[in-house]
């Protein structure tokens, strides 16, 4: 199968009437099960060579020698790209002219800034020869001591956190609030470095034809990647064609094109042939970002009634020695709980690692596990059930801004989730429940939240004279189901059944659908599709209502609706005209229009926009051996309009499993002296396996939001992680009476006598 065929998905499910809201199965599911979905690394253009990264084994210093001759002498090796031998770039890889432009290592010098940093690229006729060539480089280094961990360097207040948010925000007087509180807690929570570990390693197949560049690579942001490549190579963007029909997971690591992907393009230019470069698993533990470790101090005060008097959230985080990304962990306290005084503040430390970046719910996830733990601790200190405590401190307006919420069905989430879980039977004190086998049983909960964001996207809609339609937008399917959900929106936008719509996506020559990140892709690309559909229907209506031969003549645009490949008079549905007839009479083979999707700044100024949820978790803990098992998890989420409940439930399941992973499993183990990550593989970097997650239940709570966008979509990609991790931690406390504040919770923490 050629990729071009693979990009054009047609439906196997004829649906009539509204497509939005239908729980369709993935339209690309059969392709994937058969192994026919073309991923980047599956491409083999004629004459292609293989490139392999040589990466640094030290975390800080410089490369003093590479045995290039040994590598080049190896049979099959074609060339070795090094700082001394590489194609020129039009832009300094260390230039930074906007906050989304992250510095990369493109062999610009011999400096080593982190372990696993690329220091050379070996290009060969076979993968094996390139691999051996990379080994033969046997680099030597001038080593400087690595700075590892949150205490290894002086700290400073970052200029901004996340995407341009202030590092310190205070509303009300936190110190006064704490002083006045009748109950106060202060606790420190620590989270480790985590790595995205998408199943599909980053990969690129690059081919130059003169100044035209053809690329297969997984990306969550086709247009941004195109722009970054254009800048680095001094090309105009329209010379660069990127195909990214499928991603084997991204989670933020494929949001921005990474240095090694650019190295693949440079390698292709150097040798004048197509080149494939696929990362080894351990090479994903440096140059593609990670979730920075955090140490968070929460100070919480409450009055005698259990109402918050002050909430102070301070996060110490790491960033790299050479670039700025600051995990906005403390911002998690901005939105959830009403408090007359809230402060978030951040302090950062530069260490010798790759630059941390966006990783599924960046800031929200790290902040949430600390906040939800602290809220649980305060509920316990006040002698109030954790759910009652959260309801007592329910935020009717966004606490940090005072803005009303565009919609907020969190109360319903709490109620429906608690009902399904059976929360009312929870004994308040810890270590009260045992199962029939004697295991400690604990119930915990957490509140989930994630902002409802939108970026800017565009789409092109076509209606053809055979009655079919086309919708084009360069969207990204990371596995979340964009091929299906966006096609559903397209079908409704065009007034056609899904099987009459050809949905084209996943390439850079299509209209920019905006980045697949921030849980904003369905809203952004969906609104672009919706508006493009509306625009083409309006053109069709123009044709019909101005055509005397049409039954709709004289009806006027506003009086016409589209459905099932026909336009109808709104006031008299017996009078209609088919797309086929309208276009045929007009002598047109097709008609097209474009639409864009973007946030409404007026609504954003007036309203706080967030999705919400409530997660309830049961754990069992072996009282002697400390092993923990999550036995039940119920999540109730309100995220505006749900386009495809089957896919959304999968997204939320995935998020909740990530929460379990955060609380109990995931940790990059970093050697304290060398700065090397000691478990850079999926055998030792633990994420949950099926047996770790026996029962998951997701409730989709009805929510209509008239402000976020016309479709009412809020996004579901990241919210599932938040709340869930804290709920697991709180359940472990409820089971054992041991409050573990360093994550992941380990057996060591629960083996009594070694807490």
């Amino acid at each position, binding site marked *: 199968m050629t990729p071009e065929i693979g990009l054009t998905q047609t439906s196997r499910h004829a649906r009539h009437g509204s497509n939005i809201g239908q729980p369709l199965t993935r339209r690309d599911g059969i392709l994937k099960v058969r192994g026919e979905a073309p991923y980047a690394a599956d491409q083999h253009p004629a004459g292609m060579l293989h490139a392999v990264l040589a990466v640094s*084994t*030290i975390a800080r210093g410089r490369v003093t020698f590479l045995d290039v001759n040994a590598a080049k002498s190896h049979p099959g090796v074609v060339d070795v790209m090094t700082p001394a031998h590489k194609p020129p770039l039009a832009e300094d890889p260390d230039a930074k002219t906007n906050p989304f432009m992250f510095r990369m290592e493109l062999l610009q010098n011999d400096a080593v800034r982190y372990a696993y940093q690329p220091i050379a690229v070996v290009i060969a006729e076979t993968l*094996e*020869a390139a*691999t*051996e060539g990379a*080994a033969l480089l046997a680099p030597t280094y001038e080593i400087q001591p690595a700075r590892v961990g949150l205490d290894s360097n002086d700290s400073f207040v970052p200029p901004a956190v996340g995407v341009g948010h202030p590092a310190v925000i205070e509303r009300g007087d936190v110190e006064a609030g704490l002083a006045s509180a009748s109950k106060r807690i202060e606790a420190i929570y620590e989270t480790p470095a985590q790595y995205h570990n998408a199943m599909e390693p980053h990969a690129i197949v690059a081919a130059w034809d003169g100044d035209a560049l053809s690329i297969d690579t997984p990306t969550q942001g086709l247009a941004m990647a195109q722009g970054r490549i254009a800048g680095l190579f001094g090309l105009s963007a329209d010379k660069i064609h990127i195909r990214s029909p499928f991603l084997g997971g991204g989670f933020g690591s494929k949001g921005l094109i990474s240095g090694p992907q650019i190295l693949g393009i440079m390698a292709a230019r150097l040798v004048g042939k197509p080149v494939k470069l696929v990362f080894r698993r351990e090479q994903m533990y440096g140059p593609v970002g990670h979730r920075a470790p955090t140490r968070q101090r929460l100070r919480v005060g409450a009055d005698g009634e259990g109402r918050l008097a002050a909430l102070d959230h301070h996060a110490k985080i790491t960033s790299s020695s050479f670039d700025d990304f600051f995990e906005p962990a403390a911002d998690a306290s901005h939105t959830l709980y009403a408090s007359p005084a809230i402060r978030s503040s951040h302090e950062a430390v530069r260490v010798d690692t790759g630059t941390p970046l966006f990783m599924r719910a960046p800031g929200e996830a790290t902040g949430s596990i600390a906040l939800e733990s602290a809220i649980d601790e305060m509920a316990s200190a006040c002698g109030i059930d954790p759910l009652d405590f959260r309801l007592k401190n329910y935020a009717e307006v966004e606490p940090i801004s005072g803005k009303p919420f565009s919609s907020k069905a969190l109360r319903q989430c709490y109620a429906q989730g608690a009902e399904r879980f059976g929360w009312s039977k929870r004994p308040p004190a810890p270590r009260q429940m045992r199962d*029939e*086998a*004697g*295991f400690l049983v604990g119930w915990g909960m957490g509140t989930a939240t994630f902002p409802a964001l939108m970026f800017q996207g565009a789409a092109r809609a076509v209606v053809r004279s055979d009655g079919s339609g086309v919708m084009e937008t360069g969207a990204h399917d990371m596995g979340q189901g964009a091929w299906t959900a966006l096609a559903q929106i397209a079908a409704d936008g065009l007034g056609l059944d899904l099987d009459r719509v050809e949905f084209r996506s996943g390439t850079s020559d299509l209209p920019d659908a905006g980045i697949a990140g921030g849980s904003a892709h369905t809203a952004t690309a969906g609104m672009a599709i919706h508006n493009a559909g509306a625009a083409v229907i309006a053109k069709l209506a123009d044709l019909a209502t101005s055509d005397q031969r049409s039954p709709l003549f004289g009806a006027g645009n506003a009086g016409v609706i589209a459905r099932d490949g026909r336009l109808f008079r709104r006031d008299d549905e017996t009078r209609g005209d088919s797309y086929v007839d309208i276009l045929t009479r007009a002598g047109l083979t097709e008609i097209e229009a474009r639409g864009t999707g973007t946030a409404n700044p007026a609504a954003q100024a007036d309203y706080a926009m967030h999705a919400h949820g409530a997660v309830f978790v049961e754990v*069992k803990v*072996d*009282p*002697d*051996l*400390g*092993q923990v*098992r999550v036995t039940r998890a119920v999540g109730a989420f309100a995220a505006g309009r749900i386009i495809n409940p089957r896919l959304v439930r999968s997204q939320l399941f995935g998020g909740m499993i990530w929460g379990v992973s955060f609380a*109990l*499993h995931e940790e990059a*183990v*970093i*050697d*304290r*002296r*060398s700065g*090397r990550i*000691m*478990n850079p593989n999926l*055998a*030792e970097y*633990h994420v*949950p*396996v*099926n*047996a*770790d997650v026996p029962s998951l239940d997701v409730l989709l709570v009805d929510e209509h939001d008239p402000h976020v966008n016309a479709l009412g979509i809020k996004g579901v990609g990241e919210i599932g992680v938040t709340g869930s991790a804290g709920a697991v931690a709180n359940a472990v406390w409820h089971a054992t009476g041991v409050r573990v504040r360093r994550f992941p919770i*380990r*057996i*060591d923490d629960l*083996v009594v*006598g*070694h807490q």
Partner: protein
Amino acid sequence: MKTFDYVRPASVSDAVAAATEPGAAYLAAGTNLLDLMKGGITRPDRLVDITRVPGLDRIEPMPDGGLRIGALVRNADLAHDAEFARSYPSVAEALLSGASAQLRNAATVGGNLLQRTRCAYFYDTASACNKREPGSGCDARIGENRLHAVLGWSDACIATHPSDFAVPLVALDAVVEIAGKTGRREVALEDFHRLPGDTPERESVLEPGELLVALRLPAEARGFSAHARYLKVRERTSYAFAVVSAAAALRIENGAIRDARLALGGVAAKPWRARSAEKLLEGQRPDAASFRRAAEAALADAKPSGDNEFKIELAQRVLVRALLLALAGTPKRVPALPASPFSSPAGAFA
């Protein structure tokens, strides 16, 4: 890539002859060796693929009532052999708690016993490791070592042996048959793996060219089948190596322990037979108090090799629990979560 010879001998004697030269390595399923080669951790000059050697893939009853298991029997095939699972249930349970279903379908009995440690510093070729590169030092000793050995370690090496399978085998006096240039010899599995001392690169008593051809379980070991369990504490429910594991087997007569067999996994460079603890249990009433005394004896010589003091207490608790589970009786079928604490039947807690 690094070139190596690949030979596919047709007999054990041809295999031994082919593997005697330095730099040769036997290849069976390759579930460990190929990863090690891809990572540059081992770089053999010659692979001797024994998968076509006839006669090594049989499970055979022996005249004396024992069982002989060929080195090429697949882990999954052995675990699902009904007669084997009935006679040696804790061994079947241990096998099914290891790796993943896919790996168990491929991996062989002999390969399982000869798998290398999972110490991260052994796998990371940028780190010093006496096992990988004798004399280079041990970065684990001052590194991230909360999962390393608490028994039998040396300053040269603190790695643990990762096999689950080997733990109940050692407890049950399994024997391995070894073929060499001068014929065959037998070694008790307990003596097969070596402690690191100053030569951690030597992990077993195999001499160059020697081939493990079979594993034998004695008839006597069947006498424990009513009270034999394997318990494995790990950081996720499946596809994780043991933090600590224990095999316990009891023969109980007239309310007293006639015989006990105990071994620990995840605590040392070899599966750790706890003979002193076994002796303490003989003639004792089987209860939590006697089990705890035995567990304390088993770990009496333990000392942390790093941030792993918790493993000493944990190992005692795992041993006590394994004994309680064994006392409660072997389940009729291997539990759905083999060797997991969460497969415990009611009443297992002290």
